[in-house]
């Protein structure tokens, strides 16, 4: 295995981790004059090239990028086979100087084989720019006296020095004095096996490496040894040693030996490398503020306020556009088609008043959800949401909730169903039940359309603030309910500490944001096309039974709703329409808006279905409308910057068709009362089913009853309190 000098022609192999700049170095060495060939019998390519230095012709072989030589993958096997083949006179290990500790693992493994090695610390310029200082001379000494050369291959820096070191190493092969101390037991085993190998392997360092590989159960080396005359005896000895050592360490030997290697590298890096602490300090400095005991929570609230303001301000033009498209061209085209095929009146009514009004009434809010999901994805991917969870966790723990409850509660902002299942992570049943009872108080995304439509109808430009307040109210009520439960029927045994990881801050990628947003929006649209569509059809039927009913109020649905409506009279919304929407809202919260839309929009006698415009005019109108919405949204977004106002005086977001209809049936006070009720009342049927599945019928009934009672009391306090204060 010892390298023999074949001057004036040398062969060098470039090994290194992926992305260490190996190809750049190859190109810098060979001037891009590489040839491409295949390893025999393999599909993985190697590149070869030629360069010249001080009268030597140097053939350069670029090996596949690998992190180690454990021969797990084809790449690793190819690289290792080539290194131990004796073909290269010198191996150049290319290491990323900005990630020294990781890159040294491969260098150490190559060093253990005993072949002449030169370490190229590539990207040295980047490392310097990051303030990383590496003592190359000392590093070379600690690796057994090998040359270490700093390079910046993409700029051509250090290439001549590297070639000089290569030639020098080839002419003066590095003495194999490098060995990691694997501890007494393993070293004894290595020595025993090494002695057995002595008859076949004449180079000590290589015999040591083979002994180590045998102990690590390396199949390639085992097969090689099996071919030796005394191969079976050696393998029997190896098996005995492995059994003894694994019993001793109670772990796999490859793990134990890798542990020693990593330990060696970690210690080595500490000696040769100096890194600035600024970058870490920056994260810490940001965390000092965003997770501050007193500032953290208000800051989180402010961030969420900004998000909801943006959702309303940026999405409002698009909401209006989708609304106009659905109630305009889509309704018009559908009516035209139904008339053309001579569809009966009931079918026209079902499609226009039932499906388009019901499903369309929900789909209108897709732009709002897209914007919300986009902002939330940004907060998640940037690492801020984890900080928010940390801040909230502290708050929840203060009121007697288990720290682990934080994660299911956060999930509750998306959908309560997976959140209830997520309580499985808590070992204490009482903690799980308590958390499950509080999860529905977190505003799930299905409630957002209700907030948006009422916000736009009654609070105009402050709609975003109103939505934010609704989320806040949910959290506050959850805290209070938690306090009551933990002091009455669900006293927790103890509050175990919970470690929340705070990931490093990073700039989210556009792809990741779009994937998050698309995933969530897809779910919403899917629900609109299935559950909401089905309920819209059933609701249309109930609104038109008994047959020939003239007024919706006299329909089956109207009568049932009117019977229940007096219950909500003290809350300010004792109408059959509001009651009906709350009844269907039990199936899914999106249906509150869908039902209101079907009742108020679908039943309008004067529902304008303009069929006189041509298809081309409609399409043009849709495109122009979209462009105008995009311009309005962009202006609003830019106007967020202090000192810039591109919105002119028009700061009131336009509302959707349903919003204006609601103004005739609700007052601002009764609207707030209705929102509070929707926020707090019985969770959807899927959530109740999840609670039943996890905790039994008793707790499912408890959840439904307590939340409805809580909602009724809170809405009553809001409405009657408002009346007393003169807001009627």
């Amino acid at each position, binding site marked *: 295995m010892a390298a023999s000098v074949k001057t004036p022609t040398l062969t060098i192999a470039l090994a290194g981790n992926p992305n260490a700049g190996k190809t750049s170095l190859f190109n810098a060495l060979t001037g891009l004059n590489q040839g491409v060939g295949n390893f025999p019998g393999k599909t993985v390519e190697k590149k070869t090239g030629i360069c010249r230095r001080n009268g030597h012709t140097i053939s350069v072989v670029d090996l596949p990028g690998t*992190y*180690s030589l*454990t021969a*797990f993958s084809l790449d690793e096997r190819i690289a290792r086979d080539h290194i131990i083949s004796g073909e290269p006179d010198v191996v150049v290990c290319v290491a990323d100087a900005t*990630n*020294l*500790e*990781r890159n040294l*693992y491969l260098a150490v493994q190559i060093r253990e084989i005993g072949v002449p090695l030169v370490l190229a610390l590539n990207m040295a310029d980047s490392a310097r720019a990051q303030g990383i200082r590496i003592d190359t001379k000392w590093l070379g000494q600690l690796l057994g006296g090998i040359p270490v050369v700093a390079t910046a291959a993409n700029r051509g820096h250090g290439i001549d020095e590297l070639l000089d070191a290569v030639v020098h190493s080839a002419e003066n092969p590095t003495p194999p004095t490098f060995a990691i101390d694997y501890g007494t037991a393993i070293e004894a085993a290595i020595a025993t096996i090494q002695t057995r190998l002595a008859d076949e392997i004449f180079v000590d360092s290589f015999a040591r490496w083979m002994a180590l590989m045998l102990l690590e159960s390396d199949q390639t080396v085992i097969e090689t040894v099996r071919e030796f005359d005394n191969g079976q005896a050696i393998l029997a000895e190896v098996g005995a040693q492995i059994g003894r050592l694994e019993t001793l360490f109670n*772990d*796999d030997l*490859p*793990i*134990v030996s*890798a*542990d020693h290697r*990593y*330990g060696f*590298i*970690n210690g080595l*890096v500490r000696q040769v490398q100096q890194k600035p602490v600024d970058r870490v300090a920056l994260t810490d400095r940001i965390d000092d503020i965003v997770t501050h005991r007193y500032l953290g929570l208000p800051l989180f609230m402010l961030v969420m306020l900004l998000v909801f303001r943006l959702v309303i301000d940026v999405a409002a033009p698009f909401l209006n556009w989708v609304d106009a498209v659905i109630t305009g061209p889509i309704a018009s085209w559908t009516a035209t088609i139904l008339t053309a095929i001579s569809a009966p009146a009931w079918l026209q009514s079902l499609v226009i008043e039932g499906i388009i009004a019901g499903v369309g009434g929900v789909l209108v809010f897709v732009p709002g959800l897209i914007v919300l999901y986009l902002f939330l*994805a940004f907060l*998640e*991917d940037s*690492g801020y*949401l*984890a900080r928010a*969870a940390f801040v909230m966790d502290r708050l929840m723990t203060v009121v007697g909730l288990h720290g*682990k409850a934080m*994660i299911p509660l*956060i*999930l509750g*902002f*998306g*959908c309560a*169903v*997976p959140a209830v*299942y*997520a309580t*499985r*992570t808590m070992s204490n049943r009482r903690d799980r039940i308590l958390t499950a009872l509080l999860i529905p108080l977190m505003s799930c995304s299905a409630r957002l359309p209700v907030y948006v439509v009422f916000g736009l109808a009654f609070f105009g430009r402050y709609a975003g603030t109103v939505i934010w307040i609704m989320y806040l109210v949910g959290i506050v009520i959850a805290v209070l309910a938690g306090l009551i439960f933990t002091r009455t029927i669900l006293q927790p045994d103890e509050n175990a500490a919970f*470690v*929340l*990881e*705070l*990931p*490093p801050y990073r700039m989210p990628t556009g792809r990741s944001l779009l994937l*998050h947003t698309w*995933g*969530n929006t*897809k*779910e919403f649209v899917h629900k609109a096309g299935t559950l909401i569509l089905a309920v819209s059809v059933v609701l249309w039927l109930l609104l038109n039974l008994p047959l020939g009913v003239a007024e919706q109020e006299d329909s089956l649905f109207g009568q049932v709703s009117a019977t229940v409506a007096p219950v909500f009279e003290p809350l300010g919304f004792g109408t059959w329409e509001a009651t009906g929407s709350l009844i269907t809202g039990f199936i899914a919260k999106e249906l509150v808006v869908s039902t209101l839309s079907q009742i108020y929009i679908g039943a309008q006698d004067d529902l304008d279905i303009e069929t006189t415009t041509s298809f081309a005019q409609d399409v043009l109108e849709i495109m122009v409308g979209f462009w105008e919405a995009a311009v309005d949204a962009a202006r609003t977004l830019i106007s967020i910057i202090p000192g810039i106002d591109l919105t002119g005086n028009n700061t009131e977001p336009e509302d959707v068709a349903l919003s204006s209809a609601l103004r005739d049936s609700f007052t601002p006070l009764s609207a707030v009362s209705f929102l509070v009720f929707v926020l707090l009342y019985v969770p959807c049927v899927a959530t109740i089913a999840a609670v039943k599945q996890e905790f039994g019928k008793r707790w499912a009934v408890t959840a439904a009853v307590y939340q409805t009672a809580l909602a009724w009391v809170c809405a009553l306090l809001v409405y009657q309190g408002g009346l007393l204060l003169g807001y009627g």
Partner: protein
Amino acid sequence: MLSELLRLLETHRGGLGLSELSDALNAEPSAVEGMLQMLVQRGRVIVVGADGGVCASCGVQEQCNLLATHQTRYVVVPKTGRVEPGVVCY
């Protein structure tokens, strides 16, 4: 280092993230990533994240704020060789 890393993971049933592990081990994240990669290769550790095998059976990973807040985590495989699905939902 590896044994310390495994011990850390064994004491955190729900797993730990890269930054947390590198902080605890006082090692470069990329170096710890290399160790984790090796442990994953050897079947001692599994990756829990949006692309992780364990979460694939959940069905709600697209909506899972949990994955987003915790980002990718690493969970040690118990002696039984099987990671229960609920374990990763920390």
